[in-house]
């Protein structure tokens, strides 16, 4: 249970950064931290004590493999989610750079004041 709680605390740190910071780059970093926390939580769900990586080796029988391998389904989901997060980060950075070019600042309260 404690391990799940640590992943939740990591998520809360990211949430704090998103809600409470005024710098656009800090907000993007908060979103990245939240993505990391969710990925870690999904992998923690698939963990089995004294399990092995879900890669079959020569000479292991299939029944033994089923009894000792980690859960492969969360891993397959997370591997796509990580790469998508990189694309999303590129999109957010592009948005931030355009905003900086337009307003000359990364401060969101300033941007809200200047508007238009």
């Amino acid at each position, binding site marked *: 249970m404690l391990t799940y709680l640590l992943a939740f605390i990591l998520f809360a740190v990211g949430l704090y950064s998103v809600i409470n910071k005024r710098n656009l780059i800090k907000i993007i970093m908060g979103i990245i931290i939240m993505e990391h926390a969710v990925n870690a939580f999904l992998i923690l769900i698939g963990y089995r004590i004294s399990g092995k990586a879900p890669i079959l080796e020569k000479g292991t029988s299939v029944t033994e493999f089923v009894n000792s391998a980690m859960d492969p389904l969360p891993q397959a989901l997370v591997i796509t989610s990580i790469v998508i997060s990189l694309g999303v*980060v590129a999109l957010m950075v592009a948005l931030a750079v355009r905003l900086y070019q337009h307003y000359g600042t990364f401060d969101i309260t300033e941007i809200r004041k200047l508007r238009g």
Partner: protein
Amino acid sequence: MVLIQIFLVFTIIAALIAVEAPSALSSIISLGAVGFGLSIAFLWLGAPDIAITQVVVEILTLVILIRATIGKGVTEIRGNESKTLLIGSLILFGLGSAFFANYLSAFPEFGKSAIDVFSETPSQFYLKFGLEKAGGANVVNDILLDFRAYDTLGEATVLFTAILGAITLLNKDVFFGEGGEK
């Protein structure tokens, strides 16, 4: 298991430093520490595919963030964060932890996955017939490219769309010069 918790605590500390550090460069580097610490944790959790992906993606993220932000005079935006936002985030945190504690009781305890608890799960099917039906020894890749190839196609589409959005945002000044929309 203690080792995994130590690495998770390390990532939490690195995340706190990344959020609170005053200079942009040091906070981006601390963000890198979060990713690399998590990648070592993934290695201990028996997911080498994800460890490799995490390391490589983290490097590219850092390069993109540093290229985009360093030297823009953004390093110091601090102070007078509003009190209402802080109180609101505290309330959100309390609500979130209440929900989390509620749902956590439904999970199997740490160290037991769904395979151990239920008798018939999709993961068991994939582990049992991965080599026979898809032909690859790496079951994660069997799931990605054979059993759930639709997911991978959709993922490629999402990545394509995100990249297209980024390019469209950056495009006008690059190719239309001064005459672009300002």
